[in-house]
């Protein structure tokens, strides 16, 4: 899943694009975890479902990414894959697969402190959807 990093002096900006809204949110989740860890070392042994609410598409994107970042920061759960089941104007339901962190097998590439609201956007384009988000690193 492609994503592009855009320059920001202190932090890390990410832009993702996809044909559908579901794929867009999944691509953003992928970008987050690809930046965090070497995904080839993570196994998809455990499934978890998350449900997140938001005021609008950008708020929903932030809340969704905050929730999955907490799985890592708070519970040490690394995500291998994400499939977005349902997106409504107010909520998102997704199935995540991954495993708990194992120092012997997993390398962490970067610390991501938080998902910020700064410049966060979700836009519909002729080709599909584009989202931007800045991570505090």
């Amino acid at each position, binding site marked *: 899943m492609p994503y592009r990093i855009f320059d920001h002096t202190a932090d890390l900006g990410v832009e993702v694009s996809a044909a559908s809204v579901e794929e867009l949110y999944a691509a953003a989740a992928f970008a987050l975890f690809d930046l965090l860890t070497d995904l080839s070392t993570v196994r998809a042994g455990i499934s978890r479902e998350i449900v997140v609410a938001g005021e609008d598409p950008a708020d929903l994107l932030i809340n969704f990414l905050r929730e999955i970042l907490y799985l890592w920061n708070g519970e040490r759960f690394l995500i291998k894959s994400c499939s977005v089941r349902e997106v409504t104007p107010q909520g998102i339901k997704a199935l995540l697969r991954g495993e708990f962190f194992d120092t012997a097998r997993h390398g962490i590439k970067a610390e991501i402190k938080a998902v910020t*609201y700064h*410049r966060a956007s979700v836009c519909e384009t002729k080709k599909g959807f584009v989202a931007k988000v800045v991570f*505090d690193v």
Partner: protein
Amino acid sequence: MSEKRFRKIDEWRWEIPAEGGMRVPGIIYTSEALMQGMGGDEGPKQVANVAHLPGIVTASLAMPDMHWGYGFPIGGVAAFDMEEGIVSPGGVGYDINCGCRLMATRLHAEEIRDRLQTLVTALFQNIPSGVGSRGALKLSAKDERQVLTEGAAWAVRHGYGSDADLEMTEDNGVMAGADPDKVSDRALERGKDQLGTLGSGNHFLEIEAVEEIFDTAAAAAFGLEKGQICVMIHSGSRGLGYQVCDDYLARMVKHIDEIGIPLPDRQLACARLSSGRGKEYLAAMACAANYAWANRQLLMHRTREVFEEALGISPRELGMRLLYDICHNIAKIETLPVAGKDTRLCVHRKGATRAFPPGHAALPPAYRKAGQPVLIPGDMGSGSYVLAGTQRAFTDTFGSACHGAGRVMSRTRAMKSCRGRSIVREMAQRGVIVMASGKGTLLEEIPEAYKDLDEVVEVVHSAGLSTKVARLRTLGCIKG
């Protein structure tokens, strides 16, 4: 932001005149050289954005290390009226009470020259660092709540330091009004095993030697002399602080309409200081601030032990004492002069250091004549400065000065410029031993990613916001 919107006030100050929804002007402390290096950086626009917030007093300020952050600029200082004003979690930052702690020793650079590698290795092995690093200490729920209300005193009470350390910590290492009930379960969960850990990114522990003394009287008051070995620690409130910021930002974004004005950036989400949500955030923020002070106290204690073990010397021979500990990501209720009148304000310092003047009651008696020590770390291997706070800072910048060199290059650009280079070797050629747990950290933190520390400090000194006392040179550095 185009340059024509700036109005040069004097050699060190540029004004962004108040226009549109700005309630006050923006004032940037900088130099021609630093201004030129800022091309494309959105910091000035963020200075203007902050000027929109309700209850902002006098001006939205930026220090010479200013650069593009999220919401507030890094290096930003803004003070708010207690009745009309707001508090903004984004204006404090995710790493609540990120700060610096400088310890002085009785050792001289010559005495440890041959054992520097041993010392750096021992520190690297014994000070937990790196992404999500966990400490040796696992706090019970009860202990964690005590840390959140007591701050550095909790660490001292448990044998990690002495009362003298507390005296040399900003606000004695404890912020009043902390209420652990206002901290979420998630934040508490993240805090239970990270006390006494350095973290990653720009956090570090450095062995430094005093290279130059600029002000002999102030240096004597701070107990600094040429060649003396010191240790600088840069760390904060770890995952607990990030979570507190994240939780309250989300809550404030939900009620963003209550502020009554459209915000230029959601990351500026805030609540009135007089509101329930504002008060709750301050109570939770104080908990995170206290966690950070306890964290740096523990890091100092472990450092002291490592020095004694690695060098085989007694605590007396080492003589490690806390010179000062300051926070540079915080919102504090302070009494400061506004148009000549003492006023209670909520001062946001996001990447800015308190710089109180000689004679201020908040200073320990030993420093009351010299002014508050202002600790300015540079980029990796560049050493640090110790300055002293001034009356000018007290009246003009809400008692604040800069906090570091300030980034100029994004992390991705820094990484790219490092291809094929050995940063460890480059540092060694400069006489600095560096050890880091994360491979990427060293690349992201290369010196050219930052502004020139000497230039930044020169602006602060020349503008009279703090005066130079000493410059310290880095000998060894551990990073997360």
